[in-house]
C-alpha cells in the first residue's frame, strides 16, 4: 500500500476497506436515486461485514432492500430491475453462494445485451466476498474469480486497498454492464487512505503498487498485501520486486502488465484461487503470447493448491500462498 499512500491526494482519510465501500455506496445513492442495494442482512444488521452499516438510516428500507435468503430470486430481481431502469447493487454474502444464483448471473445478466442484439443494458453490480483465512472452511472461503472471468458479458473487479475499493465500486455502479465485484473477507478490517468525496478508479486499469527491476509479481486482492510484504523482505537481499495489482480481471489491463514484464523480464503470477484453471493461467499465457522474447525465464504461477479450503488454521494457511512462499518463489525465479 506504500505506493498508494504516496499518491493519495491531500483530502484523504484513513478508513477501513469496509467503510470505504460503504462510502462509495452512500455517495452513489445520494447522487442517483436509481441506485438501490439489495441483499441479505443489509438493513439493521449493516451487512455481514458491516459494509452497509448506517445506510438504512440514511436511505430507508426501500432503497436498502433487505431480502429473505433467496439468492437466485435476489440476483434475478436485480437483473429485471437493471433491465428496466434501476441500478441495483446486490450484496451476496459469500461468493460460495453464487452457485445458487449462477443461472441469473451467467445466462441472464451476462448475456442479455448480446442475445437481444443490443436492445438491453444490465447496469448492476454484484458485490460479494471470498477468500480464506478466517476458519470458515470449504463452503465459505473460495476464490472463484475464474468462474466469472470466463463468462463473456461480465466484468470482474477485485480491489486490494480501501482507496481502490471506493474508487472501483463507484466506477462499477456507473458502468452499464453487470460487474462482479469481489471483495476479500480479510481485507474489510485493513486500513488505508481513501480520497474524500467523489473518487473514481476506472475499470480496466492495473496499478503498480511497488516499483522494482528484478521481477514483477502480478496479483490481486489480498495477495497484493502478501506480495508487498514479500517484496520488502526480498529487498533486504537486494532483489527488487515490482508488484502489479491487476485490480480488474475483466477487462484486463494488458499494457501495464506487459510494460512491467518488458522492464523486469521475469514474472510471477500470484493468486489465492486454485491454480488449475485459475486466472493466473490466462495472464501467464497472455504474457507468453505477447512478450515471449522479453522473458528471461518462463512465466511462473504461485497459487492455491487443488483442494477445498480446510478448516484448521495451520491447514488453511498451508493451501494458499503465504509471504514465505512468495519470497521462495521469487528467489527461485531470479536465481
Amino acid at each position: 500500500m506504500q505506493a498508494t499512500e504516496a499518491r493519495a491526494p491531500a483530502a484523504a482519510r484513513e478508513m477501513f476497506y469496509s467503510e470505504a465501500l460503504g462510502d462509495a455506496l452512500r455517495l452513489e445513492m445520494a447522487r442517483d436515486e436509481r441506485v438501490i442495494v439489495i441483499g441479505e442482512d443489509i438493513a439493521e444488521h449493516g451487512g455481514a461485514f458491516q459494509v452497509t452499516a448506517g445506510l438504512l438510516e440514511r436511505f430507508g428500507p426501500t432503497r436498502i432492500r433487505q431480502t429473505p435468503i433467496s439468492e437466485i430470486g435476489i440476483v434475478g430481481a436485480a437483473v429485471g430491475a437493471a433491465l428496466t431502469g434501476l441500478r441495483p447493487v446486490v450484496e451476496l454474502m459469500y461468493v460460495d453462494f453464487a452457485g445458487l444464483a449462477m443461472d441469473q448471473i451467467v445466462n441472464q445478466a451476462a448475456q442479455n445485451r448480446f442475445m437481444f442484439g443490443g436492445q438491453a443494458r444490465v447496469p448492476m453490480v454484484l458485490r460479494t466476498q471470498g477468500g480464506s483465512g478466517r476458519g470458515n472452511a470449504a463452503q465459505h472461503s473460495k476464490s472463484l474469480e475464474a468462474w466469472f472471468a470466463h463468462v463473456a458479458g461480465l466484468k470482474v473487479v477485485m480491489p486490494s486497498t480501501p482507496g481502490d475499493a471506493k474508487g472501483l465500486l463507484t466506477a462499477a455502479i456507473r458502468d452499464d454492464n453487470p460487474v462482479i465485484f469481489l471483495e476479500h473477507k480479510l481485507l474489510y478490517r485493513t486500513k488505508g487512505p481513501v480520497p474524500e468525496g467523489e473518487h473514481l478508479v476506472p475499470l480496466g486499469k492495473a496499478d503498480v503498487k511497488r516499483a522494482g527491476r528484478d521481477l514483477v509479481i502480478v496479483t490481486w486482492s489480498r495477495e497484493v498485501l502478501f506480495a508487498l510484504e514479500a517484496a520488502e523482505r526480498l529487498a533486504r537481499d537486494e532483489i527488487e520486486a515490482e508488484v502489479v495489482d491487476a485490480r480488474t480481471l475483466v477487462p484486463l489491463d494488458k499494457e501495464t502488465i506487459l510494460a512491467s514484464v518488458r522492464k523486469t523480464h521475469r514474472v510471477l503470477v500470484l493468486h489465492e484461487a486454485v491454480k488449475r484453471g485459475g486466472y493466473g493461467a490466462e495472464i501467464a499465457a497472455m504474457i507468453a503470447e505477447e512478450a515471449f522474447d522479453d522473458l528471461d525465464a518462463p512465466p511462473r504461477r504461485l497459487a492455491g493448491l487443488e483442494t477445498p479450503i480446510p478448516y484448521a488454521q495451520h491447514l488453511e494457511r498451508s493451501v494458499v500462498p503465504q509471504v514465505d512462499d512468495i519470497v521462495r518463489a521469487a528467489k527461485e525465479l531470479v536465481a
Partner: protein
Amino acid sequence: MDRKTARDVYRVMRRIRGFEERSATLFGENKIWGTIHSYAGEEAIAAGVCANLRDDDWITSTHRGHGHCIAKGADLGKMFAELLGRETGYCRGRGGSMHIADTSKGNLGANGIVGGGIPIATGAALTAKQLGTDQVAVSFFGDGAANQGTFHESLNLAAIWKLPAVYVCENNQYAESLPVKRAFAVDDIAVRAAGYGMPGLRIDGRDVRAVYDAAREAIARARAGNGPTLLVADSYRHEGHYYGDPRKYQSKDEIEGWRKRFDPLTDARAWIVDEGIASAADLDAIDREVAEEIDRAVAWADAGPLASPIALPGDVYAGD
C-alpha cells in the same frame, strides 16, 4: 369483453397461429437454424393477458415465446427476420427464437432457461414500485417452471414486497415429455399461491374471455398497488416440445383428440359468431388479412441482409 376487444384478440390469436404455421414450414425447408417451440394451442393465454397491458408494461416470456411476443405488439417481419438470421431481426441474428426480445414494447425477452424469466419480471415490478410508476410486470411460464426454485423465490419476494406483478402459469400438460400428473402431487397448481399469501386462480386457458377477465382483475390489482396474483391457465400444446419431437410420450389418440377439443381459435370463432360480434365472413376476412400480413412479413424478412459479423466488445459490453 367488448366487441372491439373480441375482434382484436381474435386477430392476435390468428396472427400467432399463422406465425407458428409459417415457422413450421420454414423450419421444414431448413431455413430456420437450431430449434423452435410452437405456441399453437395456447394462443388464448397470451392474447387474453396482453390485451390488458400497455406498451410500457413489461413481460417476460419463455422458450415457447413467439405468442407472447406477438401479443405484446411485436412486428412479425422483425420476428421472422430473427428466425432467418438476419440483421433486420429483433436481435440481429444473435438471439434466435429462444431469445427474441422487444424492449420497445416492454418484452424483456424469451428465455431458454425454464423459469429464468420469473425473477426478472419480479425485478421489473420492483422498478415500477421503486420509481412510483403504475407499470405492471407479467411473467409467462409453463407448468415445468412452476417446479423451479425461481418460481418459489420470486413469488415470495413479490408477495412480501407487494409488487405489481402477475404470474401466468401456462399449464400445457407437459414439461417437455413429463406429464403434469407425474410432476405435481396437487391437481391444481394455483393452490400454491396460498403458500405465498397471494390470490391464485385456475382458469380455462382455451377460453380467451376467461383469460381476459382473470388477467384484467389481476393486472388492475397489481396496478393499484395491491400486490401480485398467480394465474394458472389450463391449456394444451398442439405440437411437440419442439418441431421434430417424436412425441413418444403421447398417444396419437390423445394428440388428435386434444387438438380438436382444445383449440382456442375454433372456440373463439364459435362464440364471436354466436353472439353476433362478427360474422363468419368478417372473421374469414381477418384470416385473409393476417395471411397476407404473414406473406409480406416473410418476404420482407427474407430480403433482409444476413446478420453482421460479431463486433467485439460492443456486441457484448455496453459503452465500449
